[in-house]
């Protein structure tokens, strides 16, 4: 029976080997770890892999550059702003067709944006990019005109997938809540993107895309892209080593390290535009009455106290021990990936791990050490115990707070770490019953929304630190309508400086994502931002279009802007990758020994019982 099973299952393995060669299709297998696709409907989905699916299926009016994610022509070939900044005119590429042959025109663009502006569920994902837009019209097939109440500085970045009007006009406002936008009846999803989804359903674990040979940007070098979602890191990485998949996304830094020895695999930790922070309760209030709520410790309400603690964080140690090397020490809420907007604190202001300096700053602010060695509030009463909250689903979160507790205790401040699930912690934050917690954000190429989370108006909304600073708000409002890019960048940097000084957040780390590719099969993947960034799950789908199988990779495509490809993955020789489970031999050995011991026990047992009774 078991033998038959084994023989029967050998067949497909052999069959697989032969079909792969016979068809000679270039198929790129991607393994993704962690969360899956939640919806293929771009108005509903939420999780990162869903954005990847939409990106392959649809096009965007404006794209992102590979170097720093600044705006770049996509469907729109060019755009201009009126002098008062209140009218934007986009010129839409002509000759673009949806996968069902219907031409994509400016009308589809206007339809999509209007659907967001006047829709219900459509707004949840995309309205923030169109806030302040009064009308979007398409006077002709190649022109989109956008009218605004006030200038919007985040334009022209518009990461909204353009959907075909002739399909979506049949989806009513009521139906869209559960409209799947999945392939049905053997027909792929209609879109204009470089690939079309032929197989897959939102909660599923595999998705199959076919190349769009008529793509306006030129046919991709891949014939198919197949996504497979894994829950087990080892299963995904071993599939990569064995060649079942060609790419794995979302592995740990330790796995990257162990893969770097493999000759046919190129692995790296790509800097992703996100950060982790220790956030303080900077003043929880009831937004309606303005009265304080919750029970924050008076100390954490004081910007001077919080700022002093910035010198008590040994970030390199955190990166090494807690992040296992996968990440960079953090500074401000705008990651350095966004060069134009990131403010790097000058040496004399930058936090260093200097407990003496932290102590001195605390002394100056009135938090002096009492006779018991513990610091007191400026009025002489004890600080008590700070409540540090960590997320129970993240060891990184917990261990960051463990370290923080240790450093606080070195300063003479008592603290306690407790853990909450993410949803519980959200509740605690909104009630204001905390002193500090650890969490992180993902920052979009235009930092406007991230910056907005620190404004007074976002308290009891997206703000989780309850931070409020009138000067900061003023700058935020100013940059939000700015039409002068240089001035805006200066304002944004100034805002970061304010935040750095007031320290509602102490940014601990800029996160990274572990990725690995079979570089003996595929090459020419370009990181975004280049250098240092990620290969997949980028802004845009550059790599799916421009990466090549190794046989064709003698020269890579040049990126549309700039043209330099310094960071592209190079082809490697296809020597056999081997996975070393030698150590596991020992493990298996232990198990075998265990079995023998158990066997021995039972044998002894039987001998006695048999001997006793018979």
């Amino acid at each position: 029976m078991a033998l038959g099973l084994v023989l029967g299952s050998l067949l497909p393995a052999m069959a697989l080997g032969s079909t792969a060669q016979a068809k000679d299709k270039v198929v790129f297998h991607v393994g993704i770890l962690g969360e899956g696709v939640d919806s293929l409907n771009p108005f509903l989905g939420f999780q990162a892999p869903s954005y990847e699916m939409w990106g392959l299926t649809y096009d965007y009016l404006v794209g992102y550059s590979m170097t720093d994610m600044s705006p770049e022509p996509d469907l729109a070939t060019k755009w201009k702003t009126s002098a008062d900044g209140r009218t934007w005119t986009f010129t839409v590429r002509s000759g673009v067709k949806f996968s069902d042959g219907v031409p994509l025109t400016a009308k589809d663009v206007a339809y999509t944006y209007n659907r967001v502006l006047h829709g219900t569920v459509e707004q949840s994902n995309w309205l923030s990019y169109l806030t302040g837009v009064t009308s979007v019209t398409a006077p002709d097939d190649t022109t989109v005109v956008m009218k605004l109440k006030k200038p919007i500085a985040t334009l022209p970045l518009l990461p909204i997938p353009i959907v075909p009007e002739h399909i979506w006009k049949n989806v009513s406002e009521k139906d869209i809540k559960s409209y799947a936008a999945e392939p049905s009846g053997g027909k792929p999803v209609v879109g204009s993107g470089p690939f079309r989804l032929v197989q897959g359903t939102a909660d599923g674990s595999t998705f199959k895309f076919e190349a769009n040979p008529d793509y306006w940007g030129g046919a991709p070098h891949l014939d198919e892209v197949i996504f497979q979602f894994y829950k087990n890191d080892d299963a995904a990485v071993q599939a990569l080593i064995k060649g079942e998949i060609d790419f794995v996304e979302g592995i740990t830094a330790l796995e990257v390290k162990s893969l770097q020895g493999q000759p046919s695999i190129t692995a790296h930790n790509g800097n992703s535009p996100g950060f982790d922070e220790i956030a303080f309760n900077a003043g929880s209030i009831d937004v309606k009455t303005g009265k304080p709520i919750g029970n924050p410790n008076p100390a954490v309400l004081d910007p001077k106290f919080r700022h002093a603690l910035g010198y008590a964080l040994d970030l390199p140690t955190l990166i090494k021990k807690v992040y296992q090397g996968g990440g960079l020490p953090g500074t401000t809420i705008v990651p350095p990936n966004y060069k134009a907007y990131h403010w790097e604190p000058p040496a004399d202001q930058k936090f260093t791990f200097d407990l003496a300096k932290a102590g001195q700053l605390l002394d100056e602010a009135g938090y002096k050490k009492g006779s018991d060695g513990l610091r007191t509030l400026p009025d002489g009463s004890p600080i008590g115990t700070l409540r540090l909250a960590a997320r129970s689903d993240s060891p990184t979160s917990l261990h960051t707070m463990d370290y923080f507790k240790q450093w606080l205790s070195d300063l003479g401040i008592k603290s306690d770490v407790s853990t909450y699930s993410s949803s519980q912690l959200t509740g605690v934050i909104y009630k204001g019953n905390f002193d500090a917690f650890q969490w992180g954000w993902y920052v979009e190429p235009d930092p406007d929304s991230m910056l907005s989370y620190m404004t007074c108006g976002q308290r009891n909304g997206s703000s989780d630190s309850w931070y409020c600073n009138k000067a900061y708000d003023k700058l935020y409002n100013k940059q939000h309508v700015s039409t002068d890019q240089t001035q805006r960048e200066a304002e944004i940097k100034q805002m970061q400086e304010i935040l750095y000084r007031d320290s509602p957040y102490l940014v601990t780390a800029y996160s990274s994502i572990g990725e690995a590719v079979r570089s003996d099969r595929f090459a020419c993947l370009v990181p975004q931002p280049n250098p240092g960034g990620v290969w997949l799950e980028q802004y845009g789908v550059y790599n799916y279009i421009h990466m090549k199988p190794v046989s064709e990779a003698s020269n890579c495509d040049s990126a549309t802007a700039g043209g330099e490809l310094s960071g592209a993955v190079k082809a490697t020789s296809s020597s056999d990758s081997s996975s070393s489970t030698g150590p596991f031999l020992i493990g298996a050995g232990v198990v075998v020994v265990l079995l023998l011991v158990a066997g021995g026990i039972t044998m002894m047992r039987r001998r006695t019982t048999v001997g006793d009774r018979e």
Partner: protein
Amino acid sequence: MTTTNESTGTVPVSARRLTRQRRVAAWKRGWAQFRTHRSGMVGLGILVFFVLVALLAPILASSQGLDVTTANGPVLGAPSGHYLLGTDENGRSVLTLLIWGSRISLFVGLLATLISMVIGTLLGLVSGYFGGWIGRITFRLTEWFLVIPFLPLAIVLASVLGRSLFNIVLVIGVTSWPGTALLIRSQTLSIKERAYVERAEAIGAGRWHQIGKHVLPNVMPMVFANTTLTVAIAILSETTLSFLGLGDPTRTSWGSMLDSAFEIGSITTGSWWYIVPPGVCVVLVVLAFTLIGQALEEVLNPRLRARS
């Protein structure tokens, strides 16, 4: 099932001292029989070893070794002279984690079993001893809880109650009692039928008095045998719940170690020292409890004894 180790079940005993003497003798007899079960003795040996490790943990390894902030070993270092079982992803000694983890794993197993036993014995006694609506209701309740699927309920409860050690204990305890209750109930039913309880009733002793003086002491041996098997299941459950990310993240148990090892990809990183030893410890301790439980069952159940 008609089970008792009382050889003289029909003799009414009135003198308290006599009863006690007889029970002590019964326990002694039981121990003598248990000793002949070498598998049970080996199980006991393994268990004693792990209990000693758990109790002596502060002597064997400093609790400082659990603190991420003071760990200064290499990140995921292989076993060496200094770190006999290597280090974890934070540079802590795996051996230290293993030693201290035994405390949490055993603690969870024993406490959950205690809860399960208390609820199970109480409801089993009540539903077995009392007829009428009390008996019916408690029996229905037992039946209802019996069909609650354990893992789904554990997942739901863990998200309701949050993730702490006590909640894990509670979840395991609350879901594992119905089996015990049914066992105790059937024991109680058979003992209740026996003459000496009836006689006591005729004399006019209160019902709770009867339960306390006659029924409970007679079902206790079965409860005891059942306990050891429940501990085994509870320890396995703790491991599984931790693996599913429902364990207490602030405490190190074997389950949480296995979970971390799984998360960092111990096969890929080749860190067998991180994933094999905790698994082996779980297997050994569960095996120990199972062997003891089986041996106890044979000692306490004359029908099984007669088998060979």
